[in-house]
């Protein structure tokens, strides 16, 4: 027996390590909605650097869009185009400021309409693996954010906060497979549960075959469950399929928010009870 243990010591210890890791993972499944100290530390430490990366990205974008293109043209056309470049730069900056102004003004309007005291956040990191859908935002427990709070954008619901660090938080997008929210069809008031399908789509589950659901219908939060406020747009019905059998129909929804291009979001710090 001792010889066997000696001979296969490494393999046995490796097996034990794997088993321990598996137990660790399975135990954590019960506490999916709470944040571990390690996660808090990593998010807190990483936030300033992620902000730096976002800044670099923005700088590269603005250089590419506002300068390089025009510089190339300048080389081709000389003095005349140098004038155009300057004017264009001013125009781009003006348009950019105008668009940003409109976006922020709309966000402020929305903030005033929403219940509680929403906190505005910016996306600083996105999901790596193609099978999960999460983003990291630049506000955390220091700003009153906690696990379970709903997150919205200008055009509708985005998801909910699942992990919170001191200065940043992780948001589970509504298209993630683990996401689910009570919903209603705006026109017919038919009810169901919107679940993520991965990619860019969601599905409306548990919608009865008899329910009146049509292509193009707006789906909004029903307020059932108390997590999400009532009446926030989730998306639009893009496919309705009724089989010959079964009590439910298959409904596919395209989210109202373009989840791959998000910048400013709002976290509803005091959702309705």
């Amino acid at each position: 027996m001792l010889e066997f243990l000696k001979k296969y010591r490494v393999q046995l210890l490796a097996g034990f390590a794997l088993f321990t890791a598996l137990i660790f993972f399975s135990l954590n499944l019960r506490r999916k909605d709470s944040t571990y100290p390690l996660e808090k530390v990593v998010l807190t430490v990483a936030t300033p650097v992620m902000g730096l990366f976002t800044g670099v990205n923005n700088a590269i974008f603005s250089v590419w869009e506002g300068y390089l293109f025009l510089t190339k043209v300048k080389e081709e056309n000389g003095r005349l185009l140098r004038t155009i470049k300057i004017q264009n730069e001013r125009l781009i900056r003006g348009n950019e400021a105008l668009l940003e102004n409109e976006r922020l003004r709309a966000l402020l309007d929305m903030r005033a309409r929403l219940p509680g005291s929403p906190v505005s956040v910016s996306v600083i990191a996105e999901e790596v693996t193609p099978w999960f859908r999460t983003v990291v935002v630049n506000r955390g427990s220091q700003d009153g954010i906690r696990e379970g709070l709903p997150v919205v954008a200008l055009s509708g619901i985005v998801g909910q906060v699942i992990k919170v660090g001191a200065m940043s938080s992780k948001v589970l997008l509504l298209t993630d497979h683990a996401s689910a929210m009570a919903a209603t069809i705006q026109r017919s008031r038919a009810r169901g549960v919107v679940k993520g399908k991965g990619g860019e789509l969601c599905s409306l589950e548990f919608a009865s075959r008899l329910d009146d659901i049509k292509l193009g219908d707006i789906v909004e939060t029903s307020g059932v469950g108390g997590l999400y406020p009532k009446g926030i747009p989730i998306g639009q019905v893009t496919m309705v399929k009724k089989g010959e059998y079964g009590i439910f129909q298959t409904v596919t929804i395209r989210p109202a928010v373009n989840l791959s291009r998000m910048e400013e979001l709002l976290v509803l710090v005091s959702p309705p009870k």
Partner: protein
Amino acid sequence: MIRTARFILALAVATLAQVSFFPAWLSTPFIPNLTLFFVVHLGLRVPFCWINCLAAFFIGLVQDCFSGSYFGLHGFIYLFVYLLLEQTSERLYTDNNLLIIMGVFLGILLDGVMTFCLLLLFSEADGIYGSLFSGLIPHALTSTAASLLLVRAIPDSSSGYAR
């Protein structure tokens, strides 16, 4: 010591770049997984010790901090990948860079398959297989391409260790 510090620094930069730099330029399935490269590197190039097991597990946990909602999932998977590579590395010519690149490609595929199996067994994320398997190959290919650059960028990984 310096080698370890460089390894940790490279890992930190790669982890942060993959979550905050690449997503601005690449769409979802094409964002490379750079952290797995370091696990493969540990498994194939660094002599076995239990600290490396912990390191692989920890790299997985850090990945979990930014990815998905299942804390410990990548911890387990990366530990498994590390032990698998470590146990087979005796029979392989580990100085060959191509082996690391192939290891990353197979590691990503294994990551996808194990994610699917673990979530099937322990969770109720039904339907995940659709997005998982449709995005797996592009994700593996871009990660492999990124590891081609990393293997040249990190001098340690091309010089090798005495096993």
